[in-house]
C-alpha cells in the first residue's frame, strides 16, 4: 500500500444501531471515528450486506472489532480475472 493503511470491509449488525442515530450511515461514521480520526468511509453497503469499507491501520481495525455492532472486519482482497 501507499501508507500503512489498507482497506477493510466492516460488517455491521443492522439491528444493533443505537436509537441515538437516525440513519445507519451516521452510525457507521461514528463507529469509525471512535477508532480513527483520519479514516473515512469509502463505501457504505446496505443491500447485500450491512456495513462499510474504510482505510485503516491494523491497530484501528483491531480496535474496531470491539466496537458495538461490529460483526466482522475483513481485510480487502485483490481478486484476479480468470
Amino acid at each position, binding site marked *: 500500500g501507499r501508507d500503512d493503511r489498507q482497506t477493510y470491509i466492516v460488517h455491521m449488525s443492522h439491528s444493533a444501531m443505537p436509537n441515538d442515530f437516525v440513519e445507519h450511515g451516521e452510525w457507521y461514521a461514528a463507529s469509525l471515528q471512535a477508532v480513527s480520526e483520519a479514516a473515512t468511509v469509502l*463505501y457504505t453497503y446496505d443491500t*447485500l*450486506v450491512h456495513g462499510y469499507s474504510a482505510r485503516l491501520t491494523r491497530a484501528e481495525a483491531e480496535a474496531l472489532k470491539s466496537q458495538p455492532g461490529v460483526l466482522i472486519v475483513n481485510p480487502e482482497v485483490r481478486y484476479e480475472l480468470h
Partner: protein
Amino acid sequence: TTRTPEFLGLDGTDALLPQSSTGSDVIIGVLDTGVWPERPSYDDTGFGPVPAGWKGECEKGNDFKSSACNKKLIGARFFLTGYEAAKGPVDTSKESRSPRDNDGHGTHTSSTAAGGAVQGADLLGYAAGTAKGMAPRARVATYKVCWVGGCFSSDILKAMEVAVTDGVDVLSLSLGGGTADYYRDSIAVGAFSAMEKGIFVSCSAGNAGPGAATLSNGAPWITTVGAGTIDRDFPAYVTLGNGKNYTGVSLYSGKPLPTTPVPLIYAGNASNSSMGQLCMSGSLIPEKVAGKIVLCDRGTNARVQKGFIVKDAGGAGMILANTAANGEELVADAHILPGSGVGEKAGNAIRDYAMSDPKATATIVFAGTKVGIQPSPVVAAFSSRGPNTVTPSVLKPDIIAPGVNILAAWSGSVGPSGIAGDSRRVGFNIISGTSMSCPHVSGLAALLRAAHPEWSPAAIRSALMTTAYNEYPNGNGILDVATGRPATPLDVGAGHVDPGKAVDPGLVYDITTADYVDFLCALNYGPMQIATLTKRSSDGCAANRTYAESALNYPSFAVTFPAGGGTVKHTRTVTNVGQPGTYKVAASAAAGSTPVAVSVEPSTLSFSKAGEKQSYTVSFTAPAKPSGTNGFGRLVWSSDHHLVASPIAATWN
C-alpha cells in the same frame, strides 16, 4: 461463440427463450473490466423497451457517453473507489475512468453470455461465422470492477450490491482469488444475499488446474464453472528437417514462412541467460536467431510476448513448446510472427532435434479452422479442480462449459494478444479460461430463468447439473487433457452442460435460504459469521438441533469416510417440475477396483403433480482405505422421460 451455441445444441434458442414475451426481459449483470459498447454484439435492433423496474444507469466518462447504452446494453457502471484508495488515481493514459473496457476481457465475457448475433465474425480469418451469445435476447448490464492493478473486493461488493438494486436476474463473475471462509470472501458474502433475492450467481472455478484442491468460488450458493474444449481447433503443422511432423495450434495470420525449410534453433542455445529457453525480454542473441525459427519453452512470461521477443531479435518464426506443467494442452494464440504452440511430447522431440543437429530446419504450415474435432469436450488442463478446500462436503466445480479457444467481442483499446506492443485491432478475439466458461453458464441460466421464472437459483443450477453429461456418445467418459484419462467429478462436477435437457429436468434439488443457514450451522459458524452472510442476527443455530453438512440438498454427493471405512448417510429432497411419473434409482460407486455400496431408500419415487416433493436417504458403505483415497460414482433417478443424475465423490480421511 461462432461455434458454442451449435456445440451446446442451442440452434433453436427461441424454443427456450420466447422471442418477444416479457419472459425475454432477463438481465445479466457482468462484473468485469467494462464494455466496448460500439461492438455489434450490443446492437439493440428488435429489442423492446428496457424492462420496467430497471434502475441501472449508463454512467458517463470522458470517453463514454450515457448514450452508449441502448435497449440491449441497458447499463454500464464503474467502481474504483477501493482501487484508487489502494493504488492511487488511475492512470488515464492507460485505462479509462469510465465503464469503457480497455482490456477486452469484460467485452468478451458479456458478449459470450448475451451478445446478439453478429454475422461475419472472426479473428484474423479464424473461427469465422456468426458470433452469438448464449442468451442473445437477454439484456446486459456491465459493472467495471477490474483495473490494470486488479479487482478489489470493496469495489466488487459495491458493484454486486448496485447490480442487485439495479434489477439484474443473473450475476456473472469471471474472477476470483484464493480460498477463504465464506464470511471472509466478499464474492461469497455478496452472492448469498443475491441468491436470497432470487438472483443466479455463476462464477469461474479458476485456472489453477490441473492440481487437486485448486478451485475458488466454491460457496454452495454459487454455481462454480470449470472449462472444457469444443469440437474446434486451429492446427498448425510443424515439419522438421528430419522428416518428423507434429501438429500444434496457432491463430497466426500474416506473411507465411518460406515454403523451403528454415533454420531451427532452441532458445536455450541462443542466449547467455540461465533462463534463455523461455524467450524472456532481452534474453535472445540476435546474431544467433536472425532468420531462424526459435523454439521457446512455455512458462513465466506471456505466450504471445515470447513471439514479440523472437521477432524483435530478428527471428523468422517460433515454436512454443509446452513443458510438464502444461502437458498436451494446446491453447491457440494470435502470434505476431509465424508461430505454433505444441504439446510437451512434440516439444521434447523438437528440442532434442534442434539441440542435436547443428543444421536443424523446420517449417510451419497454418491450416486455419477445423471443426468436428473429436473427442470433445475434453477437460482443460488449466481448469481448477476439487475438492473444495473450504467445505469438502460440497462437491465443486458444479459443471464444465466451453472455455477453450472461445471467440467473442473484444475491446478496441488493445490488440488480440493483449500486449501493449500489439498494434493490431480486432472486433473479436479468441481466448481461453474458466472466465470464458462462466458466462456460457450465465447465459444458459438466463435462458432457464426466462423459461421458468418461478425457479430459484438452486433449481436452475440443479437443472443444469442433473442433465449434464459425463461421457461421450460411445459411452466413454469425458477425458481430462491433463491425464489423458476419463475425468472424475472432482474435475467436472456433474459433467458438461446440456441446455436442451436442462430446460426440462424432471426433478430439481431445491435449496432455500434456511437450508443454507442450516448448512452454516453444520459448519459450526458462529452467530456473527452467519449474520455477516445473512444480514440477520436472528439467523442463529438452535442448541437442540443436530445439523449435518450432508443434509444440504445439493445435486451432488461429496462423501467422507473415516480411514477405517463405514457407512455414511446423506438425505435429499427432490421436487417434481415435470409431468406426473415414477422414478427408479440406480447408483454405483467405486474406489479403483473396490466397490462402494450405495443403497437408496426408497428406491422408487412417484409424483402425481408438479411441485410435489419427495425425500430419500442414500447410504454409502465402504471398507477401510488409506487416507486420501478417492472413489467416484453416479446416482441416477430415471423415469420414462427423464434422467436426473448426480455425481458422487468419496474421500477417505
